[in-house]
């Protein structure tokens, strides 16, 4: 299977196999007007299989979401057909509206317009807690 080479754009690489579509939605790539290709089950020396997303424009990507979801994911920035940068997203201090607080006692359960915001409280165990009620975030990371 051949997907055209990108001249200017992004290659989101090392996505765990089968999770590309989820990431597509998390990153709201459906809202883009440019070409976007999701490659599922590509062969990978490191992981066996992986997903890749190619975006046909250099867009402002939310690296915090990538850092939260999968520390192994990388982003190659392509300009004029050349890789000019390789980004390694880091664990963000806070994340907004990626996951939802499930505590029925949390204020977010009754006030729908509030952002669902979580803060990193333990880097070692990668624990995120709701900024409103301190409830532990559900695990959404790709491992």
């Amino acid at each position, binding site marked *: 299977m051949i997907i055209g080479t990108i001249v200017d754009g992004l290659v989101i690489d090392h996505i765990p196999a089968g999770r590309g579509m989820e990431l597509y939605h998390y990153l709201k790539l459906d809202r883009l007007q440019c070409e976007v290709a999701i490659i599922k089950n590509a062969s990978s020396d490191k992981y066996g299989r992986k997903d890749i997303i190619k975006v046909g424009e250099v867009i402002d990507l939310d690296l915090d979401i990538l850092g939260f979801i999968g520390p192994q994911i990388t982003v190659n920035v392509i300009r004029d057909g050349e890789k000019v940068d390789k980004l390694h997203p880091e664990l963000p201090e806070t994340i907004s509206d990626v996951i939802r607080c499930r505590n029925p*006692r949390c*204020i977010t359960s009754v006030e729908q317009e509030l952002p669902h915001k979580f803060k990193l409280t333990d880097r070692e165990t990668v624990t995120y807690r*709701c900024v409103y*009620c301190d409830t*532990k975030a559900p695990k959404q990371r790709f491992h």
Partner: protein
Amino acid sequence: MTKDLIDILDLSREEIDELVAKAGDIIDHPEDYRSKCAGKKLATLFYEPSTRTRLSFESAMYELGGNVIGFSSATDSSVSKGESVADTARTVECFADIIAMRHPKEGAPYVAAKNVQIPVVNAGDGGHNHPTQTLTDLLTISREKGRLDTMTIGCCGDLKFGRTVHSLIAAMSRYENVRFVLISPEELKIPENVRTEILEKGNITYEETDSLETAMPDLDVLYMTRVQRERFFNEADYLRLKDTYILTPDKLQYAKEDLSILHPLPRVNEISVEIDKDPRACYFKQVRNGKYIRMALMLKLLGGGLT
């Protein structure tokens, strides 16, 4: 110091010590503080019923020479029309200098604080935080013991839903040589996050037991709690657990002579009324201390511009 007090850990140990010292000075020299907040208004936004906390905040502001506005239940306010916490707080900011908010949902005072410039004090948000109760407990322990370090504190009853216990442990863990004995039935044991993120991470000595009698001889402070009906989704669980620990004179016979018995109140039946006469009972002194520490806190949060 931050603009608001949402969580007891918003305060450093030094700031807590400063508030405790200030409250002590207010107790000793109340006349010096009678007009410190003249011209200031406290808004008490209480979305659920409370006797002690609301009256304590209000009397604290009156004793500082200020005034009070507010509501004491959600049905008395625009909340009943569906107004958001943020909009209510923004509206109240136009009328008041400081807000004390109690809300049944966890995080509501945080939302208010993020939407206004004036200080917001969390006066209890569901089963989550109640920092001014913790300050009250710390002032009481400090006045009864003459210190906040080097002691064994027994926490008894509902350690799972009892927010005052979680905050007390978080605050007292910052003092040296403090040891905890956690006394509860299996179903109401301290939550995993308090155990791992405060006690174990802080290398704090603690033990868990279901026997109040066994723990009693070691204790310098006994912090009793009520099994709270409003925290249970299941009435049957509440009824099964509510009478697990009742403190009676019998159980105190092995206690130290200088034990201090605290309770955040209201009590139902977990402390027998016979104990009220015992000099070791501190829970009504604790209520009085609550007013003084709230005076100290409001003075600090209102900062400059006071008379």
